[in-house]
């Protein structure tokens, strides 16, 4: 844990691998949230919508 992180270096992009993993995981999670079916989707109505 006390050793420096490995860095990914591609052109002007320089980012640590742990940060890259977190950002990649967030993008994957966002994509899953868009695609994955939501339980009971479509059963709601327009209450509260404007």
């Amino acid at each position: 844990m006390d050793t420096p992180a490995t860095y990914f270096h591609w052109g002007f992009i320089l980012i640590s691998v742990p940060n890259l993993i977190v950002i990649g995981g967030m993008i994957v999670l966002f994509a899953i949230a868009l695609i994955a079916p939501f339980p009971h989707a479509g059963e709601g109505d327009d209450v509260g919508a404007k």
Partner: protein
Amino acid sequence: MSAPSSVGGSTPGKPESWTVRLRQGIDRHLPMDHLLPDRQPYYVGSWVYVFGVVTIAALFWVILSGVVLSFMGPQWWHDSHLGKFFNSLHFWSVQLFFIFMVLHLWGQYFMAGWRSGRAATWMIGVVIFGISILTAFTGYLSQQNFDGQFIALNAKDAMNGAGAGAFFNVLNFGQMYGLHMMLLPIGVTILVVAHIVMVRSRGVVKPIDPEGGAR
């Protein structure tokens, strides 16, 4: 002292009492069926809408673990097993808070969540994001270990370079700890409550119509 002619709201016309005006304003803009709804619009059936409430859940654990840490003190969170557990709980719930806040930000950005009179809601969210970053930075300075000292020494140059060194002395642990555990969390909490109330008063924004009809 004027007579309380409109107390209770029974007098027709504009009530003089500010409590009546406030009550009527709340009834008009934030009825209980908006504040605590049991039904949601059909388009809310997506996991994208869950990111906001998960952020609030993470904030709950951040505050709860922070209260325990502030009560017990630095020696406890560094030396005891239970203290280390709450230290880690505080750190990792902050990680989840930021991850889900950014996912919530992405979701609202791509669906243009500021439409139909929701600009103030969006801007308060931006301010919450900024204050949260300040809270996290002061948290790194409040660790009471060599890592915190190293960060403070380097942050000092950044603060001076930005011209803010006269207002914030990052080497002053008392100032940073006070900001981290009192003023900034209070600011975040108040703005989060305002953010939620504004979301509930107007409801969730409609999706963008692919035909270009929705605003």
